């Protein structure tokens, strides 16, 4: 059998395991694939679902844009200076490991309910990996490259564009991949606590009503979106890392 079919085999195995688990725990814990597909199809027909999806999408996009641009700028600023890196990198690492969810009361008190709280939550989750990996990418640029830039009297902007960004791109992209994934998680958690619409809000509604088929349907939908997105970004990530490796050899 060809390796090409492996992912499809995995999907089939997962569906079978899901069916088995659903039969094991019964309809109170997990809806079967068939029921879930029906529920999902029903949801696609309602207007509320699309409103919720649009609300989550909007918050998620804002969170991603802020996380990536903020993380990239701060990461470049910190990474280009060894002293600043040594000073701030440990602090950022510790902040990254703090469970952001503990901060939800603070976020709610500062932002109030609604859009800004969701986006803040997404940014809190997505911002740190981008910053940390940008720093580590910039720090691992070979000094001779930066010396060349100085020898050629490139301006700061030119150095950034021609030397720093291309050299650090693979790690920066890995950071962005993690940041995007965590921003999605953060946005959903934010909606869980502080929203009146969005997929996360819909989930809380279903959880409080213990509507298992709808919970399963939304979970599977999120799971599929996250996996497909992750797959695409991972493929790009691999290509970038591959390029940079062959680039070093030549």
């Amino acid at each position, binding site marked *: 059998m060809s390796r090409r079919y492996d992912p499809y085999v995995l999907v089939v195995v997962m569906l079978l395991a899901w069916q088995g688990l659903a039969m094991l725990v019964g309809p109170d814990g997990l809806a079967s694939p068939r029921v879930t597909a029906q529920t999902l199809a029903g949801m696609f027909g309602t207007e509320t679902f699309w409103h919720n999806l649009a609300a989550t999408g909007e918050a998620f996009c804002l969170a991603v844009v802020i996380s990536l641009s903020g993380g990239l700028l701060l990461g470049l600023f910190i990474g280009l200076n060894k002293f600043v890196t040594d000073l701030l990198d440990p602090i950022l690492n*510790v902040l990254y*490991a*703090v469970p952001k*969810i503990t901060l939800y009361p603070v976020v709610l008190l500062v932002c109030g309910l609604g859009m800004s709280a969701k986006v803040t939550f997404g940014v809190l989750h997505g911002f740190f990996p981008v910053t940390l990996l940008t720093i580590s990418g910039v720090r691992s640029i070979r000094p001779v490259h930066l010396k060349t830039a100085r020898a050629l009297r490139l301006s700061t902007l030119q150095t950034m564009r021609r030397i720093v960004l291309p050299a650090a791109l693979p790690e920066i992209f890995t950071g962005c991949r993690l940041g995007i994934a965590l921003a999605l998680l953060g946005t959903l958690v934010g909606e869980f606590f502080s929203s009146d619409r969005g997929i996360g809000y819909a989930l809380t509604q279903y959880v409080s009503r*213990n509507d298992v088929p709808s919970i399963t349907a939304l979970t599977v939908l999120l799971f599929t979106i996250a996996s497909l997105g992750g797959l695409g970004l991972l493929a790009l990530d691999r290509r970038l890392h591959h390029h940079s490796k062959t680039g070093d050899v030549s």
Partner: protein
Amino acid sequence: MKHIALFRLLLVAGAILVLEALCRTNIISNFTMIPPSAMVLAAWQQLSQGDALSELGYTMTNAVCAIIISVIGGFAAGTVLHALPRVRHAVTPLLASWYAIPTFVFYPLLVVLFGLNRGPMIALGALFGIVAMVVSTLDGLDRISRAVVKTGLVLRMHPLQTALLIKLPAAAPHLFTGVKLAVAYSLIGVIAAEFILATAGIGRGISLAFNDLDNNTMYGLLLLLVAVVVLINVVIRFCESKLYARWGLK
């Protein structure tokens, strides 16, 4: 190096002082945040009078269980996956996008599986921590150089001896990184589960205080929790740098 640590300490102290000043002068209202000094006082009160210690104990017991499951389970799963490259190839995208999936939506399923006790909390923590350990184990096993394994063959070592005396030490740095991540993520998982769904633990304490608008209790407990998590992470990072120095790595 000493200077850097001193600067960092001054920076953190300065930030706290600025926050204190902002809160004292009511630029940040006490509705939003109480001054850091008041937080410390509240934390102390919670420790000496409230039942914060027993709640923290409950949370930390769950976290320790989740950490043990993630580390052992992640190591075992990583070893098995490493031996089965085709399965590994197929599940890679799943591992890569795992952290974008809001794991806590599996709660109804976990309650049916484990009952309404600490089981679901531990399971959520373990689900969050285990993937980091799997990925690090795979990384570590990938990087064992063929030469050392061949040395084992030349010395006619038993496969078990090869595993214990050669492969394990060779993969150790990556395994330790995995343990570090598993600890951080399991803690995040357990605490997040408490915030969203719990019946006990310090997370619930904070949620209740937030709902009661009792900022004193809330910020006291919050400070305790964040302090414990930061302390655990700092200790692990310290051990990591000591171990790496001993192994002659960075």
